């Protein structure tokens, strides 16, 4: 198979680095971009550059942020004595959608998983500890996924900070093995309302 012009192969190669995109799909996307309007192509390129330039991680909670702090940390109406701990930035979205929760977040960046080589040092657990030790935190809600790795992470964190503050876990009711990201609003809202001490 001929590789075509160099810029085209470069684009194909870049696209095939994306998760879930194989070589063939990458090629199809590349040809699609090549055929599209100049303005559409430019807008896509700018969006990619902009997301890298403008979206980073919040310096407080490690949620996605445009600037040093995320919108939630900057919102003066949020309850600053509550921290909800989640695995990934994507897990913040379904909890926000329930409108049950008005506190702050802490995004760990994953869950403990020796199989994948992920130990406590690889997660933002030390940063969470520092937030709690800073004082003024009345409750930490552990909302890691109800999976093997999520449960282990929750229990690890609970053991670390139980002395300093009240620690709760989202109520069972989330189907075991389910990801937070895929839980529906009703179940998640109920889980948030019925959380229990751990």
């Amino acid at each position, binding site marked *: 198979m001929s590789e075509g012009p160099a810029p085209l192969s470069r684009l194909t190669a870049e696209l095939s680095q994306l998760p879930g995109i194989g070589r063939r799909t990458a090629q199809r996307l590349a040809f699609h971009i090549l055929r599209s309007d100049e303005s559409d192509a430019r807008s896509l390129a700018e969006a990619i550059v902009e997301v890298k330039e403008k979206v980073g991680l919040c310096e407080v909670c490690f949620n996605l942020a445009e600037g040093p702090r995320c919108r939630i940390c900057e919102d003066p109406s949020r309850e600053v004595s509550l921290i909800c701990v989640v695995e990934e930035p994507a897990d913040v979205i379904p909890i926000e959608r329930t409108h049950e929760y008005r506190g702050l977040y802490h995004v760990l960046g994953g869950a403990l998983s*020796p199989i994948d080589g992920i130990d406590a040092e690889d997660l933002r657990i030390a940063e969470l500890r520092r937030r709690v030790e800073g004082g003024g935190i009345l409750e930490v809600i552990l909302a890691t996924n109800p999976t*093997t790795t999520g449960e*282990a992470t929750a229990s*690890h964190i609970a053991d670390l900070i139980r002395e300093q503050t009240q620690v709760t876990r989202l109520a069972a009711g989330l189907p*075991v*093995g389910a990801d937070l990201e895929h839980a529906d609003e009703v179940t998640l809202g109920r889980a948030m309302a019925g959380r229990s001490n751990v």
Partner: protein
Amino acid sequence: MFVARVEADRVRSLTGVVFEPDPGLTVIIGPNGAGKTNLVEAIFFGLTSRSFRTSDRRDLIPFGSAYARCRVTVSGTGVDHMFMASASRSEGSRYTMDGAKIEQAEAAGHRPKVTVFSPDRLELIKGPPAGRRAHIDSFVAARWPGRAGLRSAFGRILAQRNALISRIAAGQADRSGLATWDSQFAEAAEALAGSREKAVAELGERWAAAADELGLEGPKSLTYRPGAATTSEEILKGLEEKLENDLRLGRSSWGPHHDEIRVELDGRQLRRFGSQGQQRLGLLALLFAERSALLETGGGAPLMLLDDVMSELDAHRRERLVERLLEGGQAVITAAEGELIPERGAILRVAIADLLEDSREVAG
């Protein structure tokens, strides 16, 4: 609930075979290679979309054909339901009830549970403990559906702990991470061991009674032999004590993954010292014990599919087995020769040759 009709459209050597079993006991008779086991497998496949002989459904596709398909009609609850399972090389497998796709968990509520005896399953009695653990865990899941996940939950935690142990042994991780996984391990191990203990306690006496009834003579017992402590505190303590050993081995050497469900006759393990016939009776008694436990606790009687169950049993014990099967519930058994089956008016006898002839006429 019972199976009223089986249409093995294409399953292994069977094409267009229609079979209507009795709600009680049916015997399928035919010489070696006639297709008896294939028919029993077809019933299981149509009901569950799985096979008890193979994990690859494509084995059921008739040689030279593109797909396998079986339809099974379940009656007895007022409305009939038709289950259909198929497997195809190009399109994967399908499982439907009344024409609509259905998941295993949902289907289970609309069809009878199925218990299978086949000569391969003697491995359960003869083989290593892992098979008995898996079997008891599946009984736990049938008996207490809320506990169905305990086995796999423990398995996942064990895998994580093993990974951590081998990374610590290789100097890639430090020991501080162990406490978390040990406590997860201890909790899951306690839940799993507790369920196994409860299950075996329910089955023990029933097993001995069924075995007596089938003619397995002598003092006997079915007991749970935990491979580790059974309370989470003791398990935690044990894990600490065995840590150095675990690190040397690179895995968790202690826990419910070493449990045994011991089957004994005359104080000796049936798996090591039992005769072929005794092992067969031991397995049958276990299946009957599970059936009676499920029946008494409000579950429906499972359909019993007993393939090639009569061989190696003497005339007296064959009688007892048939008596037991006639006590209630639906059963389908196979035999190479009709003489192996005691004469009873209530038994429906079906010659596989007749089923095959009918299918040829229809295709005709």
